[in-house]
């Protein structure tokens, strides 16, 4: 069955999410056509992952004062800031299209191809990120509906207001310094910073649509519009959905390890026994790309020594660096142990946010 293309701009958080979930459900039931939805949100909204604790991830006062909507995605992962310069990509296909993993590879490949058309060489990193030279440009996620319909979500960065993002997402810092802002900026890649400040959202969207093999836009029928409105009202406008709590406790921990090559300072935020995010600093010398790559790979990793060690050894080399992998493993594991045994106030996935999980 051919893919239908839906395009819209300025969606509210509740309407955009309701449309995507409705499509997944109806496509799974065989009553709507497989659909690619390429859209932007009205400025701005913050969308947390399916199970995240809103108060830990988001500065709700900052959102309220900036008139920023808050809502919850059906897909997993971290909180993301969405607006006119972040392309929402939603693909709804039936179960019969293939296995979720195989389809995820195809979904990611088509996004990479769209970026390649713009001269950007993005690679698949970790579980569900697209990255350019270690900096994240898109986060991907999958939701499987009870009908069997599969929803693939991505947020693709044409541009990003990093200062706004750091203001509305909760970080471990009482005040975000210029240095931290610079580091976060280096962890994020956007089409405009990589290629050209003049690239428009429509151009980016056309490249994505072309990569998925669709060029003519379609529209929702009356039944679909009604179903979207019903779900928007019953779920995405319901405070109980947005502010639901999980039984999995959030926590945070920090550890420093002194080595002859310098101090390694690691902070982690955890969801139960899973690392949500890691922040690696210190006065050692290392390739910034290596640090960014490792931070990306540690996200949503089981907080087990073997898994952590495997990721560190995979990325950490001594080329030009002064600290060896063993010290980094020790620092990350100690931070994880602190988070579990002596947790400090939890915070969110504040670095290179995105649906990098689930």
């Amino acid at each position, binding site marked *: 069955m051919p893919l239908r293309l839906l395009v819209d701009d300025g969606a509210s958080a509740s309407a955009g999410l309701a449309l995507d979930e409705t499509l997944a459900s109806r496509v799974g039931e065989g009553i709507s056509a497989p659909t690619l939805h390429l859209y932007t949100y009205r400025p701005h909204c913050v969308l947390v*992952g*399916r*199970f995240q604790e809103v108060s830990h991830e988001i500065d709700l006062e900052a959102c309220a004062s900036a008139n920023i909507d808050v809502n919850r995605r*059906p*897909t*997993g992962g971290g909180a993301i800031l969405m607006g006119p310069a972040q392309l929402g990509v939603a693909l709804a296909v039936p179960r019969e299209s*293939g*296995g*979720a*993993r*195989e389809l*995820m590879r195809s979904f990611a490949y088509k996004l990479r191809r769209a970026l390649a058309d713009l001269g950007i060489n993005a690679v698949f990193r970790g*579980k569900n990120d697209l990255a350019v030279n270690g900096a994240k440009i898109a986060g991907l*996620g*999958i*939701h*499987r*509906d*009870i009908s069997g319909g599969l929803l693939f979500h991505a947020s693709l960065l044409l541009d990003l207001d990093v200062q706004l993002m750091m203001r509305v997402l909760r970080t471990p810092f009482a005040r975000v310094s210029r240095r931290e802002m610079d580091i976060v900026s280096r962890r994020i890649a956007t089409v405009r910073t990589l290629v050209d400040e003049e690239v428009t959202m429509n151009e980016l969207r056309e490249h994505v649509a072309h990569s998925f093999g669709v060029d003519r836009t379609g529209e929702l029928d009356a039944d679909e519009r009604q179903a979207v409105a019903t779900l928007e009202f019953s779920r995405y406008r319901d405070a109980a959905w947005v502010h*639901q709590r*999980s*039984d*999995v*406790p959030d926590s945070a921990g920090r550890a420093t390890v002194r080595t002859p090559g310098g101090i390694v300072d690691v902070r982690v935020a955890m*969801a*139960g*026994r*899973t690392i949500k995010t890691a922040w690696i600093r210190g006065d050692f010398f290392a390739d910034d790309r290596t640090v960014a790559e490792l931070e990306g790979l540690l996200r*949503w990793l*089981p907080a087990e020594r073997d898994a952590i060690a495997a990721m560190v050894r995979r990325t950490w080399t001594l080329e030009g660096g002064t600290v060896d992998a063993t010290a980094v493993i020790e620092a990350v594991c100690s931070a994880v142990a602190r988070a579990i045994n002596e947790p400090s106030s939890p915070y969110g996935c504040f670095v290179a946010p995105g649906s990098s*999980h*689930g």
Partner: protein
Amino acid sequence: MSEPRAFNVPRDRYYDGTHHLWAMRDETSGRVRIGIDAIGLEALGELAYVAVDKVDALIARGASVGTLEAAKMTTSIAAPITGTIVARNKDVLADPRLINEDPYGAGWLLEIEPSMWSADAAEMLSGDAIAPWANAEIEKLDAETEGPRGASSAAG
């Protein structure tokens, strides 16, 4: 070629072949404990979050009874039987990795008072039907991963 993978799919219970959930009835109480099978868990990866309906909720076979977030996706959990929820495993709600670690034991999800057990059981796989189904599911799983690893089953 890699060694064939083996999955533990015990014969002492019933399986919902589509959604990879198991169901096991306690002959004394009549209650049915449900959980996720090892093949389904392999497809999902490490679990980060699980939410299930509340005790006393009425559930219908095939309808959503909760949601989970795993390394590879979020997904609805489809009830394998019809009945009333009588217990939730609070340990796995707070620490979903228990499901990965012990899917048929400490990682159970719900206990249900079934309202049509015989009919639901007839719709699920049991006994000699388990091994061929498990082998086919493992083949599907292997086909999705990079490079075939060969089908196998440790059903039994």
